[in-house]
């Protein structure tokens, strides 16, 4: 029993250590500003949107794929919601229907991704790169490139709502992450994900329906981006045509910092969550320190590399040579 359990816990412990070191440093350097409750809640709230996108990205990366279209889906879902519900628009639907339609449209993009990748055999990178451009075009087209305002007040309110002192946005993230940790470990959906990502051929021979599962993975991943789009929408209090632009990089970085391998089969939701926190900590800390923004950018770049370097370094020291090769390839 020992073997695997220990190892897994261990992998994420490195990240936790890196995170704690950063936090302690920042708490001291900002004379406590960083560790104030207000800032901690800020940090979690700020991580939450990328955190939710990154949950979906984790699924895709475990399959051995990649999804560059998440940012555009974020933009699309927020925009569709705004158009559907805006009091200044043509539809004036309720928030409920706005959410349903926004998510459905997001899921449709996921399905198209899956069809292109699984059935069309287009590499995930290209399929989702194309969709990134295409979907952003749609967002621009339906909004004529303009912000759509007049969204319901309860929607805007959500961004400031708190529960037990923790922002509603953060709760959304935490709950979704917990659910997915469970789903990945205890359901067929989750296990099929790892099986297909690890060796698609072997999975097929075990009677797993690859097509059905791939569709499911991409649709679910797109749904997470859809939810993130709504979360972003509450923060912006409008449908913004450029909303979500560039989010794919943060999401991928979170997942990889979280220990997943881009060659598939490996990755956890907890790791990704820690990865998302690490990235936001760097940003948040930089702002609090009030460093020159250019220098800050240089530091952010360096820290992203160093965080993964330390993680790999500790792992390879502990596990001995046997696995060194693995990391080289990962």
């Amino acid at each position, binding site marked *: 029993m020992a073997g695997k359990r220990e190892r897994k816990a261990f992998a994420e412990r490195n990240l936790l250590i890196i995170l704690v070191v950063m936090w302690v440093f920042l708490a001291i350097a900002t004379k406590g500003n960083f560790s104030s409750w207000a800032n901690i809640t800020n940090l979690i709230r*700020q991580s939450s949107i990328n955190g939710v996108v990154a949950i979906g990205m984790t699924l895709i990366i475990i399959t051995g794929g990649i999804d560059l279209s998440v940012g555009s889906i974020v933009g699309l879902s927020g925009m569709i919601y705004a158009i559907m519900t805006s009091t200044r628009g043509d539809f004036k639907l309720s928030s409920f229907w706005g959410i349903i339609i926004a998510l459905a449209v997001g899921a449709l993009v996921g399905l198209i991704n899956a069809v292109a990748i699984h059935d069309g055999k287009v590499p995930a990178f290209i399929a989702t790169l194309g969709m990134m451009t295409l979907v952003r075009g749609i967002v621009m087209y339906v909004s004529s490139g303009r912000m759509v305002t007049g969204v319901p007040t309860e929607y805007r309110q959500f961004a400031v709502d708190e529960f037990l002192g923790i922002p509603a946005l953060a709760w959304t993230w935490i709950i979704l992450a917990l659910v997915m940790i469970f789903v990945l470990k205890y359901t067929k959906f989750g296990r099929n994900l790892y099986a297909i990502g690890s060796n698609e051929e072997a999975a097929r021979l075990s009677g797993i329906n690859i097509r059905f599962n791939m569709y499911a993975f991409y649709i679910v991943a797109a749904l997470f981006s859809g939810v993130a789009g709504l979360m*972003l929408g509450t*923060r912006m209090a*409008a449908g913004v045509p450029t909303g979500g632009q560039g989010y794919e990089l943060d999401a991928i970085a979170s997942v990889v910092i979280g220990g997943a391998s881009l060659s598939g089969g490996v990755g956890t939701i907890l790791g990704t969550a820690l990865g998302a926190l690490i990235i936001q900590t760097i940003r948040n800390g930089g702002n609090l320190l009030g460093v020159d923004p250019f220098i800050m950018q240089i530091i952010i770049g360096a820290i992203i590399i160093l965080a993964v370097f330390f993680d790999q370094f500790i792992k390879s020291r502990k596990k001995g040579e046997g696995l060194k090769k693995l990391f080289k390839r990962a």
Partner: protein
Amino acid sequence: VYNIAFIVKATDSDFWQYTIVGGKNAEHDLQGLAKVTVYGPPSEADIDLQVSILENVVNTKPDAIVISSTSSEAPSLILDAAYKQGIKIVLIDNFVYDTGYNSFLATNNAVGGAHAADKLVEALKANGTALKGKVGLISAMAGVQVLTDRDAGFTNRLKEIAPDLQVLPTIYTNNDISRSANAAEDLLIAHSDLVGFFADNNHTGIGVARVIEQRGLENKIMAVAYDSDPLEIEALDSGALKALIVQDPHGMGYKGVMFAFMAINGEPLPAYLDTGVYVITKDILEDSMMILDPFSRKKY
């Protein structure tokens, strides 16, 4: 010392650098009475990042915030909360709805766009070109409000004063000079009756100017651009661009900080101040240097 936070839309362009010079000059002129700290995301596309920055800035409890927000809605609740906490809020360049604030300083971008149309028609007339044919519109990015306003201002005005000039579908170039030049090259090939260009920011302006300059089209194609940076000024001088529509970023930054300082001290402020646009043509170039290059006014 009062702490004044100065949040720009992006740190990667001259325009915001000019604003920062204005802000820092104000700090200098206040002679130690206020400390100005500059914040900003690397790119204007990072709306959410700017909101995060604002949240973090509010947490540091400054005495005033001078902000040019990328979004008119996103920071409302945070700004309003800060305002209610007693932090003075001065909005520059872009308005924010649903928040309390002390003053708003901005340029009207649609008016700027309309000026561009006027100048284009003037240039065509001066060149003896008939007011018909096609006009290319090169835009840096889709979905950015100020650009959309400039483009709309330009298109609407041109329709009024030269209805026979047809504005071609906008080409967006991802704020890349090379791609803007590509777009200009392509439009020249596609439309033999092309008579002019409007480029809605500095990078698109340079791209268009480069093509005109390289092909010696100064007397055939009239181009007007927004913003000013050294290459655009050079192009204006060489005739590749016929006019520049310039905001007053330095003034915006300077006045922004000064207004913040006044607000902290309880001075009355106007709710809105139009910082205006300047239309610069070659003949007044000499006299406009301080507007065109606020770096020359750097005092610190």
